[in-house]
């Protein structure tokens, strides 16, 4: 873990509780993320997901602990770590295109204006935005279109690490589905690492290589790391047929429904790191034994 691409080491966050004392959101959280991995983090509201993400983004400082990327401790925000905020955070006085070129120009200051624009248009196109829509201001776009612009802005900068805080939280299920597919399309084929917060179990299974599960706060911890053993490319309608799908889904539902509360607030011995326990659900080996039978049925 210590030599992962991104390694989170003994991260602790405390806030004053408003009564003179302080409360601990999470303590000694440690986990690693490999290069090119797509990791989702699931947990109940208030457990500290956004707090972790803001620390990874460099927008806030943890009370204790370090985050290392490529072996170096991060300090402050960086263009290497792109962020898609929950509320899109587009600049409302700029058009969709200008919002993207704003980022690209910051990332590649020596590019020509034309190159910046072409690059931005290409990324907007990848998330399904083209034509005159890209010349409109955010207020003239739908919620889904705004989030697409926000994703295009983050990916156009080609950061090493992408942080997404519930990017689809405010969208309806249909739009969410389309944008999830677009997100996978933009991400696949790059070696970019993605860390995404979500509330949606199905979304996490569709997108992630690995899902981190957090217990409830305060004193939350990253309790488990569930491998998503479903091969890519994944299509929403097909993955539900995969033998691992329901096993994984059940595990996640059980965790969020019951165990996240049972495990909550458990302090451990002083200084012990709370590394997540790896969970690997693999039903296909078993299925492979039955292969002849299955094939017999098919033919």
């Amino acid at each position, binding site marked *: 873990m210590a030599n992962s691409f991104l390694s989170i080491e003994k991260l602790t966050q405390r806030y004053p509780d408003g009564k003179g004392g302080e409360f601990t959101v999470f303590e000694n959280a440690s986990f690693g993320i490999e290069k090119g991995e797509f990791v989702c983090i699931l947990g109940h509201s208030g457990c500290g997901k956004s707090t972790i993400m803001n620390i990874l*983004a*460099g*927008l806030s400082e943890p009370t204790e602990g370090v985050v290392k990327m490529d072996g170096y401790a991060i300090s*402050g*925000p*960086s*263009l290497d*770590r*792109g*962020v898609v*905020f929950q*509320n899109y*955070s587009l*600049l*409302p*006085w700029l058009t969709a295109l200008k919002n993207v070129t*704003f*980022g690209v120009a*910051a*990332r590649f200051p020596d590019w020509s204006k034309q190159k910046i624009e072409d690059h931005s248009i290409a990324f907007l196109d990848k998330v399904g935005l083209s034509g005159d829509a890209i010349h409109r*201001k955010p*207020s003239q776009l739908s919620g889904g279109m705004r989030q697409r612009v926000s994703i295009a802005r983050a990916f156009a*900068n080609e950061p090493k690490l992408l942080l997404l805080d519930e990017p689809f939280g405010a969208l309806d299920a249909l739009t969410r589905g389309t944008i999830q597919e677009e997100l996978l399309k933009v991400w696949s084929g790059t070696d970019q690492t993605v860390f995404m917060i979500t509330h949606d179990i199905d979304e996490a299974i569709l997108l992630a290589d690995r899902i981190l599960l957090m217990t409830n706060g305060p004193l939350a911890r990253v309790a488990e790391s569930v491998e998503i053993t479903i091969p890519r490319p994944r299509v929403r309608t097909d993955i539900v047929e995969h033998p691992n799908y329901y096993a994984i889904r059940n595990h996640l539902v059980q965790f969020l429904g019951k165990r996240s509360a049972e495990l909550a607030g458990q302090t451990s011995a002083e200084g012990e790191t709370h590394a997540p326990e790896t969970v690997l659900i693999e039903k296909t080996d078993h299925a492979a034994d039955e292969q002849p039978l299955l094939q017999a049925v098919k033919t």
Partner: protein
Amino acid sequence: MERLSENRRAAIWSVVLLFVGLFVWEISISAQTVNTGELTEYELLTGAGTAKAGVPPPSEVVVKAWQELSNPFYDAGPNDKGIGIQIGYSIYRVLTGYFLAAIIAIPLGFLIGMSSVAYKALNPFIQVLRPISPLAWMPLALFIIQDSEASAIFVIFICSIWPMLLNTAFGVAGVREDWVNVARTHELGAFKTAFTVVLPAAAPTIVTGMRISIGIAWLVIVAAEMLVGGTGIGYYVWNEWNNLDLTSVIFSILMIGIVGMFLDAAFGLLQRRVAYVE
């Protein structure tokens, strides 16, 4: 009758009201001057009833306006300059004082808006200085600066600085943290952030302050020029009053209103340029 658009109907009403107003004015004046024979002593003393001192009817004002506006820039000595020259002087003073104020108020407002320490340190001074009528500064300005022209400009400066300062500070302090975070995650420096994120985000509030300021400056210049004398539309009004030329007084009052309206409209235009919908 087919229905006219709302704007059309409003415009027709405006014209109707204008003519009714002018008509009532004209009628009441001519009714007044009929009474000339039976004046009381008081009326004689205050000058009522004499052809020169009476309130002129609108027709006279229109004739006067035509004369003045057909040759606005003549200059026949210190007490006889065209209306264009007088207004020019006033606008020049207003804009000079106003821009000096803007140069100080906007950067200072940025500072106050960004730093709560600066805000708390400067707030007591602002709270005490702001309610002072700009004209109260006049004697002190005249004494220290020793120059009536510069004193008038100073008075404009001091009255236009507050709305711009407070609105800039308010606008800058209210910039959404998300937008500042966007700048931070793009590694923009302080200056780049100020110009590409904070300024456009706060621009509507800042321009509102600028619009309020220019309105106040135009109100104050008339009074200031009445005090310092010499040139300007304020002096012109006062001078014509001393000449008991009420036609010119009314005409110049109208001109003050019209110029003020254009100044305000210019900032209204700017306001629309920088507005955005969240």
